[in-house]
Every structure is written in C-alpha cells, then in structure tokens.
C-alpha cells in the first residue's frame, strides 16, 4: 500500500442498523475527501447497497456472521471494500434488473446501482470465502470533468427508445 494511502476498516454486525452505520461512515470520509453532494449521494447509496447485499444475500441475515468494511483513500480515488462471510457469487450469475421479465421484481437492483453510481466495480472472492465487493470513485480535483455532478461511467439514465 502506498504511504500516502489512508486506510480505515470496521467490522459490522449482520443487522439492519449496520447499513446506516456504514453509509454514515463512508459519507464522512467522502465529504472530508472533497466529494460534492451528488457524488456523496452516489457513494453513500453504493455503500448501502454493498452492505445490504452482504447482510441479506451473503450472510443470509445470520447474526453470528460479520461484515467487513474497508476504505482506502489514495491520491486519486476512494476505494471501498465490503466483505461478507457467505459463499460468494459471480457477477455473471446476477440477473439483469432491466430485462423485461425482471422489471417488476421486488429485489435484485443493488449490484446494478453500485455499478451505475461508482467509477469502478467488481466482485472478487474474499479471504473469508465470501464475496468481496470492491468499488471506487475518482477523487474530485483540478481537471476533474465533473467534481460535483455525474456518477460512474454507467450512470447515464437509460431512456426508453
């Protein structure tokens, strides 16, 4: 890890309250890092969705399992890791929530939102054997295309033809 990288991590219980706690903590880091309101919203939402995913799908809402949240603040981006103690999953197996047959599904939009709101997004096999979500957003700064506006590369609303 580069010496100018700031690292923060916390272990969360598998309870609903952990979702708000994770969101609040990441928002504080994002605001301190200089992200504008819109990007903070997108980062906060992505963290919520990552922890909801760990809480519900990864840990199956089992209270004896933990959720591990880590934030790396590098010179050019904020990287967020959310690790669960489930069995893991592959992105290719996640149904497309925009497919006609899934539009009225009552779940399954979390991964899509994280992908849309962050600049980089991936799911890897974590050290616990569970899924580790790794997502990042470029820090705002001089030369930044839109420090306070657009989200990830996929954030453009998709209008019906």
């Amino acid at each position: 890890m580069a010496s100018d990288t700031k690292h923060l991590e916390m272990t969360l219980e598998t309870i609903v309250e952990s979702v708000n706690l994770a969101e609040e903590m990441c928002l504080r880091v994002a605001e301190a890092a200089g992200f504008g309101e819109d990007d903070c919203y997108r980062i906060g939402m992505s963290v919520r969705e990552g922890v909801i995913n760990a809480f519900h799908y990864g840990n199956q809402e089992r209270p004896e399992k933990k959720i591990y949240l880590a934030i790396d603040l590098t010179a050019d981006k904020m990287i967020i890791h959310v690790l669960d103690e489930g069995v893991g999953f592959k992105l290719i197996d996640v149904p497309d929530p925009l497919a006609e047959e899934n539009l009225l599904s009552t779940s399954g939009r979390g991964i899509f939102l994280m992908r849309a709101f962050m600049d980089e997004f991936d799911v890897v096999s974590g050290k616990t054997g569970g899924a580790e979500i790794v997502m990042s957003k470029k820090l705002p700064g001089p030369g930044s295309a839109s420090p306070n506006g657009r989200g990830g590369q996929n954030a453009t609303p998709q209008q019906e033809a």
Partner: protein
Amino acid sequence: MSLHATHRDAGKVTVVDLSGRIVLGDGSALLRKTIRGLLADQRKMILLNLADVDYIDSSGIGELVSGFTAVKNQSGDLKLLHLTKKVKDLLQITKLYTVFDVFTDESAALRSFN
C-alpha cells in the same frame, strides 16, 4: 430520517403523503404496512405523494414495486406524485419510470383515476 406516512381521502382515491427515506428496515416496512392496510380497507386507488421523500434505496424500490403489484392484483391502481430529482433519476435508471404513472400535479393525478 425515518419515514412518516399520513393519508387522506380524495373521493375514491387515497393520497398517501410520505416524508423521509424509504430504505431497508422501518421505512420499507411502513410503506408496506400502509399500502396493505389501505387494501384491507378496500381503498384500491392509491396516489403516493413523494414530494418529501428524498432518498430511496433498492429495498425501497422493491417495496414500491411490491405495492404496485399488490394493488394491481386487486384491480386497483397505484400512481406516484411529485418525485424529487433523486427519486426520479433512480426510477429512470432502473427503467421503472415507464412502469409507474407519474404526475407533477395532484389534480391531474386524481383525475387520471377516473
């Protein structure tokens, strides 16, 4: 900020005024309870006023869809009023903006149920 919900009757339509966040936990649960309660009272024409809802996560979206489906299954209708920009953007990127009937004027929304 937790979710608050009150409702008022406008003829055969029930307007539900929501404020706060519709998110995993109490917010989603309250929305579910409110819609299910109205259906139990045979109030099947529902207009959700989201003017003071500035945040919805995937659980909240799921609850909106669940409510929409439950109302439709009872031959009713559930429509949305006064979306904030964030909520509108969220419904657009999830393609749900084309599923729900969305209004910016309450009178027009009420007339649309006829």
